[in-house]
């Protein structure tokens, strides 16, 4: 089932295209890794797909009314903003906003979803703590739990694993894989190519606002492709432990 479809998405800033004619379809069961160098347009693609930034082209999500869109896709922004020292469970419960009636407190279904999300991200023990007083990694997991509590068919996550320790990075990607196994879809912008290689079902490489490669991790991270997209020499092995990717050295440091 198609969860998101963008066609010819273009975003211009001061006349220059920061996202240039991007088309992408995401279906249930997929973990799509969005990769590319800094400034390639990963964040802009996620924001434009959601309609958070004015764009030319078509996006199935941006076309929806705000509440319907919030039920169709959850978004984890890159900046981990928590403005007020609210309790962790209150913060996670913000994910229930699109499901709640205009008045009244949380329903039993809301509470159950919040509990599930916190359990999944292993933050249930933090429930009563002020979210601003957590460690960076704990805060990142709490914010992912907020996205899970939204219980949408599709999740768009911008660098969800940045700043997490290796165990938490793997656990987070495994949560996304489990969601995909349930038939949901995940689009995740990542800088860690080794992590992406192991946990994504499909990869889309952006460079200078355009899609320059897409396919299985093995195709996108093959040496020729890695050199073209990232300007690095890299090794990609299909080992008995799964795909292993290691960047080795810079081959060209061209400015895109």
């Amino acid at each position, binding site marked *: 089932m198609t969860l998101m479809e963008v066609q010819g998405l273009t975003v211009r800033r001061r006349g220059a295209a920061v996202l240039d004619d991007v088309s992408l379809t995401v279906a249930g069961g997929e973990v799509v890794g969005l990769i590319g160098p800094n400034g390639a347009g990963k964040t802009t693609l996620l924001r434009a797909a959601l309609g958070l930034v004015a764009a030319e082209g078509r996006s199935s999500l941006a076309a929806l009314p705000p509440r319907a869109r919030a039920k169709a896709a959850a978004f984890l922004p890159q*900046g981990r903003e928590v403005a007020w020292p609210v309790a962790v469970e209150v913060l996670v419960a913000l994910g229930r906003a699109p499901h709640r009636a205009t008045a009244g407190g949380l329903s039993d279904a809301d509470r159950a979803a919040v509990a599930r999300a916190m359990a999944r991200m292993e933050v249930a023990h933090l429930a009563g703590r002020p979210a601003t007083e957590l460690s960076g990694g704990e805060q990142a997991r709490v914010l992912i739990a907020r996205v899970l509590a939204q219980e949408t068919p599709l999740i768009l996550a911008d660098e969800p694993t940045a700043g997490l320790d290796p165990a938490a990075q793997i656990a987070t990607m495994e949560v996304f894989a489990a969601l995909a196994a349930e038939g949901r879809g995940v689009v995740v912008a990542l800088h860690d190519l080794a992590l992406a290689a192991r946990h994504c079902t499909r990869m889309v490489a952006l460079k200078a606002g355009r899609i320059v490669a897409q396919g299985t991790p093995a195709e996108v991270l093959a040496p020729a492709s890695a050199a073209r997209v990232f300007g690095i020499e890299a090794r990609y092995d299909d080992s008995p432990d799964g795909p292993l990717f290691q960047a080795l050295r810079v081959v060209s440091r061209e400015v895109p």
Partner: protein
Amino acid sequence: MSRAVLPLLAVLVLALMAGSLLVGPARLGLGESLSALLAGGAEGDAVALVMQEVRLPRALLGAMVGAALGLSGAVLQGFLRNPLAEPGLIGTSASAALGAVIALQTGVAALHVLVLPGAALLGAGVSVALVVAIAGPRGGAMTLILSGIAVSAFAAALTALVLNLSPNPFAAAEIVFWTMGSLADRSMVHVWLALPLMALGAGMLAATGRGLDALTLGEDAAEALGTDLRRLRMLTVGGVAALVGSATAVAGAVGFVGLVVPHILRPLVGARPSALLPASALGGAAMVLAADIAVRLIAPDRDLKLGVLTAIVGAPFFLHLIWRLRARLA
């Protein structure tokens, strides 16, 4: 604890309103005052007159102005995600003051009791239109703050110009005293002028709670959660302007309430912006009522100005908050 906050604040406000009704230069007995207030004229016309025409509007306006400032401060802090935001930030109070000052200077304020507050409301209205026009239709928190500061500064400069050019020292003194804020010598006319606008503003701000909660996660996350940011901004700016404009129109500039009250109450309600709104409204009412009782007790015959007292108490208190913040960050 957070469940008990609202009932406790409500009791506090009621107690302070009762206190406000009982404090004044006319030394009236407790029973005498209350029966005069309720029955109206049963114990002689003078007592009923003092209670119904002097003290009742003063107590009502104290609660209304305080609630308006407290609620506006809480909403603005939530909307701008900044604990230093205060109701004057978007330029409304400075512009309302400018309108009033022009009315005083030109002498039109003497024509009718409603001219002065009317001019203040006009100033507030113009400032909102200006701020929204400068900030642009999609402007975020930062453009709103900056355009508010610009409008505020311009209104303050024009106020200074009016004072500067004032040919008459008595008019200048009157203007200066007016800007200090006071609830003395107000009547039910002021209550009826402010009430509908304040009800409108409070209604608009009451609808912002969910959106402000979502904004805890930042503008992108809030929008992706289904929050209509343009509508939220419209409600915030319109509601704050209606409340602060009418509060300034009837009471002059009363500073620090909208800044300090949300600050004090935030930890008591678990920091959730939506929970802070009713608490700050009640807390603001309590603070202004208490300050207005204090000005009558401290200097009964000197007409100590309300805004002077709230600033004298508010500023050191604010320093104390900064001190605590510094200690926590160290």
